[in-house]
């Protein structure tokens, strides 16, 4: 699984993004985090192999999420489905 790290000054929280390389909402979410100087990691699920896709499905569903992108996991406990600026601002304090 190719995990990409995007460095940022705001690194108080551990932010992980499940995204699709073709998804416009995912692109907007990544850009929003960059513009807010939030450090995060992401993986483009459509570019993963079948084994990793299965792991990702299990991870998202196991956390009570839905198979929608972006799925953003903050500090390994808060899961945000979709690009929700309001929820990101609240969770990340930005």
């Amino acid at each position, binding site marked *: 699984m190719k995990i990409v790290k995007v460095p940022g000054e705001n690194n108080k929280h551990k932010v992980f993004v499940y995204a*699709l*390389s*073709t998804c416009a909402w995912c692109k907007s979410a990544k850009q929003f985090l960059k513009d807010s100087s939030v450090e995060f990691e992401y993986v483009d699920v459509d570019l993963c192999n079948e084994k990793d*896709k*299965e792991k990702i499905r*299990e991870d998202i569903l196991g956390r009570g999420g839905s198979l929608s992108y972006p799925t953003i996991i903050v500090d390994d406990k808060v899961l945000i489905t979709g690009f929700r600026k309001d929820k990101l601002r609240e969770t990340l304090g930005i």
Partner: protein
Amino acid sequence: MVRQRAEADAKTYGYHLNPDPEFLRNLLEGLKQNEERYGYPSCPCRLASGKFAFDRDVICPCDYRDPDVEEFGACYCALFVRKDVFEGETPLLPVSERRPLEKQVRAYGVRTEAPAEKKVESAVTATKESSEIRLKLWYCKQCGYVVFREDPPYICPICKAKREIFAEIRIRADALG
């Protein structure tokens, strides 16, 4: 090419394309990429399996567009939007997924061996079953439109009747002889 097709389709059905030029450009680029890698323009915001039979319902314009635009003002990826959203009167928010989970997991369950994790058992079982997709003939009792698909459309593309108006056409063996 993808842009012209989307524009023509929006015009036919009375929709508008996303008003944000950058967002629209990303969507069209995603559609183009999917068309190149899969051979058909599946939704850029959904994970495709790469198998036509599994992805048919999310090939743009997807099966969920009409009810989503009607209810939320935009389709799932927000390529197509309603007039009030286009004009900025109604804010555009992420649209929750209408596609049933058993169809979503088809993009993940390409392998069929039993998983170790119990928690996703139902999803994986659904994937196995989906390897035999049953296509059926459906007709709109209101206008007579006939479609050969796994499920009837949410809204009849001809007369806009709701899904409940559709009935399956069952061909009896004695009618064939």
